[in-house]
């Protein structure tokens, strides 16, 4: 079995949010809906001694996804082949239970199609041997995806080359998030997306 996840090099994210736009254009996501978002983390400190980094957040491909557990129709499930969490549009009733359950704000209601929507690591592109839209369009080369169970995959290699103290995950609230974050040049802030949105210290956190 393989497990597809993202490894995000947060030092390399320049906060341009190009990934958000690329995702929407590729996947037909409307205004106010997001499969992924980039948050400013900071600035922390007092002027002029500050730190700030940028945090792209998408589905964390959890081991025990809260969204799957919350779904009343089993529309939300993990792929057997690659462990990616998917939503079956036929059986989804758009009750938004998954959205409420997810600690990472990774699910969004697709108003046009009246179904819940989430990152599939661009399944349609991967099938064609291409990279996801966000990865392809990231000017900073901050986003990597691949099979974490394959020691030769780009994501496994990247993690193997990174010192353990620089590898982070978003706070685990019981679902065991799969994605990894690399941050060397700033202190990791243990904040969930909704907490970051409330702080909104810098630019608008949409």
């Amino acid at each position, binding site marked *: 079995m393989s497990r597809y996840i993202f490894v995000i090099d947060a*030092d*390399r994210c*320049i*906060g*341009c*949010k*190009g990934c*958000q*736009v690329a995702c*929407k*254009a590729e996947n037909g996501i*409307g*205004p*106010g*809906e997001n499969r992924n978002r980039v948050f400013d983390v*900071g*600035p922390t*400190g*007092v*002027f*002029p001694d*500050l*730190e*700030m*980094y*940028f945090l792209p957040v998408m589905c964390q491909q959890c081991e025990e996804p809260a969204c799957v557990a919350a779904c009343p129709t089993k529309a939300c499930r993990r792929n057997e082949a690659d462990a990616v969490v998917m939503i079956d549009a036929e059986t989804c009733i758009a009750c938004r239970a998954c959205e409420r359950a997810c600690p990472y704000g990774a699910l969004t209601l697709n108003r046009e199609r009246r179904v819940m929507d989430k990152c599939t690591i661009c399944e349609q592109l991967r099938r064609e041997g291409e990279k996801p839209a966000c990865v392809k369009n990231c*000017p*900073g*080369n901050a986003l990597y995806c691949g099979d974490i169970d394959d020691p030769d995959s780009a994501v496994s290699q990247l993690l193997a080359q990174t010192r353990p103290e620089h590898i982070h995950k978003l706070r685990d609230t019981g679902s065991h998030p799969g994605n990894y974050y690399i941050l060397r*040049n*700033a202190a990791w802030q243990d904040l969930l997306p909704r907490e970051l949105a409330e702080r*909104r*210290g*810098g*630019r*608008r956190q*949409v």
Partner: protein
Amino acid sequence: MMYGGVDPSIADSNALELYFDSEIKALVLWGTDPSCSCPASGGGAVNDQRAKGVKTVVIDPPFTQDAAKADIWLPIRPGTDVALMMAWIRYIIEHRLYDAEFVLKWTNLPYLVDTETKLMPRAAVSSDPAVPDTFYVWDKRTDSMQPLAYPWDDALEGTFTVDGRVYKTGFTMLKEQVADFTPERAAEICWLDADRIVKAIRLFAENTPGGLAIGVATDQTPNSVQAAMGACTIDLLLGNVERPGALMQRFRTSGTFDMPNYPVPICADLLPDEQLRKRLGGNEHKGLGIWFAGHPSSILEAVLTGKPYPLRVWIDRSGNKLGAVADSKRWQKAMERLDLIVHMYMYPTSFSAYADILLPTEEWLETNMMVETCNTLCARQQVTHLWETVDETVIWSMLAKACADRGDEECRRAFDPEFMGKNLPYWSSEKEVFIHFLKRIDFDWEKLCWLTPYEYMPRRDWQTYYVYQWKDEKTGLAQGFNTPSKKLEIYLESMITLGRTGKPFSKCELPPASKDYEPLPYYLEPHESPVRDDEVSREFPLVLTSGRVPYYHHSTLRNIPFLREMYPAPEVWVNPRTAEGYGIETGDWVWVRSKRGEIRGIAVLTEGIGPGIVWMERFWNPETLNTKTHGWKEMNVNILTKADAPFNDVVGTYTLRAFQVQLEKADGAPEGVWLNPEDFKPWLPKPSGRTKEVFVK
């Protein structure tokens, strides 16, 4: 002018060493934030360099994305950049951090300057452009003033009296010019910490090769040209030029264009001298000649007062002038006085609301364009065409044709190959323009489309270093730089000639400017300033600067739903300590007022801006285009900016950044503006097939 090559602008993709695995060790981003201004090109390239261990210094009032990733951030007070540059120069000279051998051999700093005329006396004047004039140096051996033939010299510093006249070397002139600017003095002027200034200078000066890139920030105050001179001086003193890893380079080009990527032949040599002499502001600010441009504020005055002559027609090819020009309310008054306004653009903007005639141009996906990037030539190709639009290259030609048909002699001659000489006679399609350029390399448009991206030269041949050391075939000597002296002209004597005659930009002699231009950078305190204790600073105590966000380019893209939903209204960054006095919280709508007007924005309290400073993104609101504001009066920073004197002496820059404002909490958002993501749905693209070609003759 100092270097004779292109400036290393990152946003203009001129800093070519960034795109390769080069020897860069350190970069200074001075008022430029590639992560905002060009994320997909320079932003990514600088990011790659950082990941390889290249050190960066960012000098910018707000804590930008690039500042967040910098080794040292200097949050400078807006508008004081030249003071800090002079401190850098002073420190580099005082601590002998400059490349002494390079400065002696390859800059004009050893040449003697007559302190009275500020000119460099000549021992011999050359009429051959390949051979420079012969200048004087101070010969230490004979202790006398001696002519020294190009290219080597041997004395750098000193003040000497000969026959009652005092001469100093260019180096001494520079040293004396910056003498007052100690790190402590700069710290006081620029609201910075002196130790941090020194750390930044050392980080850059001790890690060569590298480069210092400026952006438009320093171009937007009356001290603009001096900032460019200061920035260039720092790099040249450190020898950051034409070495592998330096940003200032003269790499080869394909030879296709007259000006880099300039799509239309400009025929500058055909402009009658009398036209050039009466160009508004062109005599006072002769540096504008490099872009064949007029001076906006002089144009504004001419429309409002009819002096020195009245203007009647405005043909505009740009986005939203009312969102882009300083003190836009005065421009509205000027527009009311004109007989005819024509707006040529891709979609309606606030400016269109005041136009008599609209000329819709094709969007970029509808046009073809030749692009040269590094050692490749590319054909950007039309993918669709919708509705009644025409390529703007062709619209100009159509206008000329229409005038020619109605008997205008000049326009008729624009189509006459004999009159146009080496220039392209006016054309009927953009393909004709492409052929004009592409035939120089034995290409046509179809071939370029087929071979895109076409590598016109292998990278190794294209990436030419040390071009100044190449032997000139005629003289047998090193060819030097593209300057009159063939040296790097850190003492920019040609500023004086420019101000007096218009040379080298003007093809005819122009009357002298009211005051000589200075050959060395000088610091000009902003006219409206928090350190001046006057009426303006008492009523408007905060200094405002603006800047970019990654989602928009200049005044475009506010009508793109996926971008606008991320940043629906301009943020007004205020330090929490400053905001306290105004009772403002993050998310509040605030009034931002200057002497010239008032607008609203959304307050964001952040440590990312210093106390006493306000940062704001410029804006306009396409959604209120058809209301009485026409979209430019709600949130447009240029309602606040300053279009009157003082101007930069050389190019006439007015004040778009670094002026005084006050804040007040507002009751809410301006009427009719869109803020929620769903609001922008009407602007989502509607699928359409290819529409019928419409071409009005």
